């Protein structure tokens, strides 16, 4: 099947989940990525089960700060 990842066509033998795609595409820090599938932003907890079908359009959108690196945050109590 053929899908588009960040605008580029990629071919896979079978359908795969978003988690598998992140791995196959060697995304360095998958937890720093938001995923848009066919125009919809996916819930992070669905990455493992959401299947990308033939013709799917996937965008990996990266968290970007202002140049001081990837910081780490938590919600305050």
């Amino acid at each position, binding site marked *: 099947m053929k899908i588009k990842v*960040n*605008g580029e066509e990629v071919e896979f033998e079978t359908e795969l989940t978003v988690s598998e795609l992140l791995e196959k595409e060697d995304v360095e*820090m998958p*937890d*720093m990525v*938001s995923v*848009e599938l066919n*125009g*919809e*932003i996916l*819930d*992070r907890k669905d990455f493992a089960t959401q299947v990308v079908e033939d013709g799917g359009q996937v*965008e990996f*959108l*990266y*968290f*970007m*700060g*202002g*140049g*001081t*690196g*990837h*910081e*780490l*945050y*938590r*919600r*305050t109590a």
Partner: protein
Amino acid sequence: MNFTEEQLERYSRHIILQDVGVEGQIKLLESSILIIGTGGLGTPAAQFLAAVGVGKIGLVDADQVELSNLQRQVLHHTPDVGKLKVQSAKEKINSMNPDVEVKTYDYYLMSHNIKEVIREYDFVIDGTDNFPAKFLINDACVMEGKPLSHAGIIKFTGQTMTIVPEDDETPCYRCVFPEPPEPGVVPSCKEAGILGVMGGVIGTIQATEAIKYLLDKGELLTGTLLSYDALDMEFRKINLNCNDNCGVCSDDPEITELIDYEQGACEL
């Protein structure tokens, strides 16, 4: 308002420009823009907004100029090291264009004070370097109905999007990035580094969006993430839709009060 001889000359290239003209220049002179963060993104944005004659510019930054800032933060010069960034930027703007009133805020915006500051301005530019600030600014702008240019830069890449909350079709930052990254997922706190020109490119695009919004001209980067890769010299526009589950801009938002996220400790 009537232009002085000096203003007619200073803004002559705008005045002859169709879609700006006398009317547009007056609009700019009567407008106000808040720039949060006077660093890599904020300084190039500020310098062009000052040059074009935006009447009032607010600058927010609690930091002082460091030598390592000068590689990319173009309003700060070598003698400014140690000076408050907002003061350094204000001096350059005053010298560049006396038509511009500069208001400085030398403290961090948090949940308790951000709304009253952004209310004073027509448009907000996010030039911050961290996620707690980016989420806070987005949420405050959505709640206050204030238009915003969001941006991020790292290494050789950058991205920006424009959010106009009064337009229901416009997704916000949280529509795309629902929550800041979870604690423990970021492998290293090592600085990633950044090419000195990245803020110049993206910050100037943010200034362009602000000017277009004020003049009501052209197509804004609403519903669009503009992504820039300097190594491939490639710009891509990624279409974004509103997220029905967005925590802050959906019909029944989960977040009704601003959140002060904290920067977690480095674990490595």
